[in-house]
């Protein structure tokens, strides 16, 4: 159904009631869910290793992706770390109850090498991963597409060099995976705002002890934002807290057009007009399986059943994407 701009000549934004009932009290009209979307809060992830972890443990039946599934993860991020991080910070991660090697997948930024990684595994030698390095020069490659620049390490991704952001200082990161069982270049795409970040480094995924993973579909899964999902330790930032907003998990390989729909802006390189919209009414809503919005100090997944625990100094923030 196309968006409605006017009702009998009146701007829809000027209408607050329908048949005497405040619009905010209506759940649906003629069976259609009403979308009253606002974004006022994000997740502020503390910087203390372990003690500021954000996680959902053992989500019973959700998020059980395996290596042959297509899936995507999208999230808005306002980085707080500095060049002194010098390690790897997990942005999004998930794993089964058996620990680090059990049906684990993750998105992390390796600050010391200026690389954005995506990988999945079922064992220490049954893993596949790939990365985009942000000082990659050339039109259409990560340095230009992110706006970070190509001087390494001075142009590394950090709070003082955030690259292209929206008007609220947030970047939309999206990683999409197809149905191939390895993290090959052809199977993965990374986006910065609405822009494709160019080729992943490895043509066929990593090369050392990288046998095809055999993830377990029946395992319950942990889910984490801003730290790893198996023991919550390791770098979780430095400098200022990193903010995360509108974290969304999809059971399909999103297309470039669909990523642009999430970005919500004009789609030209470097433009700042992107802003979150209600992904539950997006054209991909049927494929949305997890959705953490952090509104009203909430930790529940609006879709799916993975309610987050926010430890230590991690909290919700009124600075939002």
């Amino acid at each position, binding site marked *: 159904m196309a968006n409605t701009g006017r009702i009998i000549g009146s701007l829809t934004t000027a209408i607050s009631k329908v048949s005497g009932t405040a619009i905010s009290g209506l759940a649906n009209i003629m069976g259609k869910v009403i979308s009253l979307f606002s974004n006022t809060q994000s997740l502020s992830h503390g910087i203390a290793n372990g003690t500021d972890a954000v996680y959902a443990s053992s989500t019973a039946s959700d998020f059980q992706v395996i290596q042959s599934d297509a899936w995507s993860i999208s999230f808005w991020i306002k980085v707080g770390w500095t060049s002194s*991080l*010098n390690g790897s910070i997990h942005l999004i991660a998930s794993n089964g109850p058996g620990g680090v090697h059990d049906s684990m997948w993750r998105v992390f930024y390796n600050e*010391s*090498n200026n690389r954005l990684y995506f990988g999945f595994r079922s064992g220490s030698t049954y*893993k596949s991963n790939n990365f985009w390095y942000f000082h990659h020069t050339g039109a259409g490659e990560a340095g230009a597409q992110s706006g970070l620049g190509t001087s390494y390490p001075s142009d590394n991704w950090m709070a003082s060099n955030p690259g292209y952001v929206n008007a609220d200082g947030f970047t939309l990161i999206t990683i999409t995976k197809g149905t191939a069982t390895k993290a090959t270049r052809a199977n993965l795409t990374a986006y910065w705002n609405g822009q494709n970040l160019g080729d992943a480094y490895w043509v066929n995924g990593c090369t050392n002890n990288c046998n095809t993973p055999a993830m377990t579909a029946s395992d319950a899964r942990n889910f984490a934002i801003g730290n790893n999902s198996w023991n919550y330790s*390791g*770098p979780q930032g430095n400098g200022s807290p990193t903010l995360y907003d509108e974290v969304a998990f999809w059971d399909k390989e999103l297309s470039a057009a669909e990523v642009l729909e999430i970005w919500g802006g004009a789609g030209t390189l470097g433009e700042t007009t992107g802003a979150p919209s209600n992904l539950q009414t997006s054209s991909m809503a049927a494929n949305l399986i997890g959705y953490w919005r952090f509104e009203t100090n909430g930790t529940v997944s609006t879709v799916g059943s993975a309610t987050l625990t926010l430890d230590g100094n991690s909290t919700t923030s009124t600075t939002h994407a």
Partner: protein
Amino acid sequence: MDGNYYIFTTTVYDTIDKNKIFSRFYDLTKSNVTLLATEPLTGFSNEFSSDTETLTYIHNNQSSWPEFGELVFEIEYIPAIDD
């Protein structure tokens, strides 16, 4: 390659054949380097038998090292893009 975990001073590290290094990370002042080598090396400051042992040592010397986190030695050193 398993077991070839070291810490070198950066001065010594700079003399090592980079083809023998699988993964490497500097300390906060870039005066020392911890690495996983593809074969046994000499001239090191410290030698370790596993990634866990290496990371425990680094964790206990936090004033000079950042926290790297588990699996860090899986990150390949690629001279063409890392130097």
